């Protein structure tokens, strides 16, 4: 019964979506208040209906109701409760339901918090949002219904892919989806603006916080995913340029560009068409990501549910939404009013450069991701594109972006003085140079890329700090006054500094862990001692440990340094029966200065086992940097000016010169 309620709620949601997509749009075009108001009610009703459907599916999972095909295919009674719940979105149908649920939540949020929006804009935004929703709901109901019954019901379910039975991956999809779908708001605002035919700073003040919200979720989602790859796949790698990783990275790059260009629209009323295009691109890349993962067009370990029929539907949907949006852009953008002018050397100019490089980087990733498809379609040849491609293309685009990142915030709006900005960065330049010298000194076989990474990392961290120090006039005025100035700075300034420091911390983490990594690939039997980076790892024993739905083969290691006990490590391999599969659980001792990483491999049949042992200095800084970025985003989001009501007050003030 419960699954039928869920199914019914979903059908009702579709009806409400159609109403929300059509009526407010007509209302806005003809100026009928009542018709426009329909959008609010519809958005609220919808979140309730989709919520009921989502709750129904979750109930079926918690109760292990195997008469529901989706549950039978993806769950198992022996699975821990946490993974029964997260199993809801660890499969195709359920993850789409989560997608539409989040879309409905965002829509309702605009309905609730959007009181200060011009009524026609609000009605149009919600109508566009619902148009996207109609497509997704049709897709779910027509090709991917999670509520289909199975008769006769099997006694036991198929189980969830053990790789996905992990806390990291359990919460990775919701964060990613909150990011992907969050970009739909910027998209809807852009389409609404194109329909209205105008964009003003108030528009940007609305788009910015929503984009920022989506960006924070994307950042966290990608971070969790990459940390999962680090400890679960057993190779100590954290980014594989896998199509599905790229699918989340491309919208992130576009959203990062959008965040920055929206600042220019808000402060300077320029770059309007470009910002609209970026918003369309960012969401299109999210949809493309969904298409790539769900259609089976590209091979990937992640494509756990792919089906060409579904692929065709998603492509049709993608073509209507993205194609339609870009077509509308082609029609309307030339007629949009142009905004303020600026010199190439200025804050705006720096942000334009940032945008160009980010978009070019996203395009590179897109080409790398789709190249196997292009080649297969044209010649029938099968290839895969790996890290060498990205090292050769992505790095040369990102390096200049990072190099200019410290300079941009030092430039004033409209017209800047490059020499002046650079002279204020003299000390930072010296630090980076020192870093390069130290790298040459310390690293045994140093590559140009290592030096570049160290230099850029230091340049970013200290550049961001220098900009902040400059702003609070540190050392130029008494310390007390500087602290007061820091307190008075807008939250968005704090957020920017944190996020930019985060980028530097991440670059340092990537470079240092790669340059000074220690790697031992060996086989050992109980009693042996392995050594890495000054640590002794004594292999004490190995044995079987039962888990809730698996058997683990677990080794025990005693880690000492100069005879002092440091920690115990328990690397293991889990063997699941439903479905039959093994997963590696690496044992990691993370510290700020470096991780000891130990993964258990195959037995040699003679009492010895293969081990992969790494010492990865500063590797945790990679995710620490990501965390800084996300926190920076949060702090910036807390800025008073982004809050409801504040924009109205701010509009009265003249555009400030160097604020932000």
């Amino acid at each position: 019964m419960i699954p039928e309620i869920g199914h019914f709620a979903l059908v009702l949601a579709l009806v409400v979506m159609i109403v929300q997509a059509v009526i407010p749009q007509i209302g806005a075009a003809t100026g009928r208040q009542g018709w426009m108001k329909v959008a609010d009610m519809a958005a609220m009703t919808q979140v309730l209906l989709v919520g009921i459907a989502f709750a129904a599916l979750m109930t079926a999972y918690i109760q292990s109701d195997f008469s529901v095909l989706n549950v039978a295919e993806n769950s198992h009674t022996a699975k821990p409760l946490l993974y029964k719940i997260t199993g809801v979105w660890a499969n195709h149908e359920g993850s789409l339901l989560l997608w539409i649920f989040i879309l409905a939540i965002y829509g309702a949020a605009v309905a609730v918090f959007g009181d200060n929006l011009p009524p026609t804009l609000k009605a149009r935004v919600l109508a566009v949002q619902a148009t996207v929703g109609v497509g997704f709901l049709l897709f779910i109901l027509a090709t991917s219904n999670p509520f289909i019954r199975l008769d006769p019901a099997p006694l036991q379910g198929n189980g969830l892919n053990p790789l996905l039975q992990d806390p990291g991956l359990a919460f990775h999809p919701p964060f990613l989806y909150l990011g992907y779908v969050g970009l739909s708001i910027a998209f809807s605002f852009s389409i609404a603006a194109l329909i209205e035919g105008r964009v003003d700073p108030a528009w940007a003040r609305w788009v910015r916080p929503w984009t920022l919200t989506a960006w924070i979720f994307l950042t966290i989602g990608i971070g969790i995913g990459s940390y999962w790859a680090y400890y679960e796949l057993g190779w100590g790698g954290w980014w594989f340029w896998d199509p599905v990783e790229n699918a989340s990275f491309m919208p992130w790059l576009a959203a990062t560009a959008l965040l920055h260009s929206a600042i220019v629209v808000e402060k300077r009323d320029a770059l309007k068409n470009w910002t609209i295009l970026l918003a369309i691109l960012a969401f299109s890349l999210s949809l493309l990501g969904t298409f790539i993962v769900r259609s089976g067009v590209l091979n990937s370990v992640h494509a756990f549910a792919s089906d060409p029929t579904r692929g065709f539907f998603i492509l049709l949907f993608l073509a209507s939404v993205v194609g339609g949006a870009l077509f509308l852009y082609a029609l309307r953008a030339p007629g949009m009013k142009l905004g303020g002018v600026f010199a190439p050397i200025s804050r705006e100019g720096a942000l334009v450069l940032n945008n160009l490089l980010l978009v070019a980087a996203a395009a590179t990733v897109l080409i790398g991701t789709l190249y196997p498809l292009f080649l297969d379609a044209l010649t029938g040849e099968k290839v895969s594109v790996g890290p060498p491609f990205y090292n050769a293309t992505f790095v040369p685009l990102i390096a200049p972006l990072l190099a200019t990142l410290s300079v941009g915030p030092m430039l004033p709006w409209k017209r800047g003085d490059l020499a002046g900005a650079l002279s204020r960065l003299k000390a930072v330049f010296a630090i980076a140079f020192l870093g390069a010298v130290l790298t040459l000194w310390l690293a045994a076989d140093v590559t140009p890329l290592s030096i570049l990474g160290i230099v850029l990392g230091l340049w970013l961290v200290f550049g961001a700090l220098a900009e902040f120090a400059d702003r609070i006039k540190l050392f130029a005025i008494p310390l007390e006054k500087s602290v007061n100035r820091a307190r008075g700075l807008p939250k968005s300034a704090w957020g920017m500094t944190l996020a930019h420091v985060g980028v530097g911390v991440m670059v340092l983490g990537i470079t240092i862990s790669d340059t000074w990594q220690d790697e031992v690939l060996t086989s050992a039997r109980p009693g042996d001692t392995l050594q890495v980076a000054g640590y002794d790892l004594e292999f004490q024993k190995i044995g079987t440990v039962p888990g809730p739905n698996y058997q683990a083969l677990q080794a025990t290691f005693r880690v000492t340094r100069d005879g002092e006990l440091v920690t115990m490590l328990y690397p293991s391999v889990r063997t699941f029966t439903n479905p039959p599969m093994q997963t590696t659980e690496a044992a990691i001792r993370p510290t700020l200065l470096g991780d000891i990483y130990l993964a258990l491999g195959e037995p040699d049949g003679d009492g010895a086992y293969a081990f992969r042992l790494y010492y990865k200095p500063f590797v945790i800084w990679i995710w620490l940097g990501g965390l800084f970025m996300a926190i920076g985003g949060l702090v910036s989001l807390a800025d008073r000016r982004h809050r409801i009501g504040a924009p109205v007050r701010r509009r009265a003030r003249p555009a400030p010169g160097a604020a932000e």
Partner: protein
Amino acid sequence: MSEGEGMAKAPVSTLRRVVLAAIPVLIFVVLAAFLLRGLDLNPKEIPSVMIDKPVPEFSLPPLPRRDDKGLSTADLKQGQVALVNVFASWCVACRAEHPILMDLKERGIVAIHGMDYKDKPEDGQRWLEDLGDPYDLVGNDLSGRVGIDWGVYGVPETFLVSGDGRILCKQIGPITPKILRNKILPAIEAAKAGRKVTC
């Protein structure tokens, strides 16, 4: 910005703005065309690894209550075109595929052998007793060892084997009515007629 908007000098002509604004949608059309083509291609297809190779040397024990001797290489070299279907009692997709195999058996156009993959013999036996038994010979591959030699990486998978024991064609994932019609049946026909099998 790509419209030159904002940049101090560049006064932009209307025509140029129109052309620039149309570029994104044109790029997208090309991209969509490739994606459409991509739907018909299968990136998971591993072309030439097992196809046209003789079946690996193997010998699998029978299920407990079937009166056959299991399945081995020799059984596939009897001069008769055959399907080898990899299944398991724990596999839900196999359940979906099962009626199609039953139907195919009824039509009697090809011998179907089963490989019960990573499954306890008792479970596989019970599965066939409950749902019906479409197979001529069935071998139990408890450890999955033989499956590795065959290049199996998921169930269900189905191989078309020629009379002299060569793998002609491979289907990954459940056989649907459409796949049966468009891929499997034509391949069987071609194999029986001694024509070149493409699939």
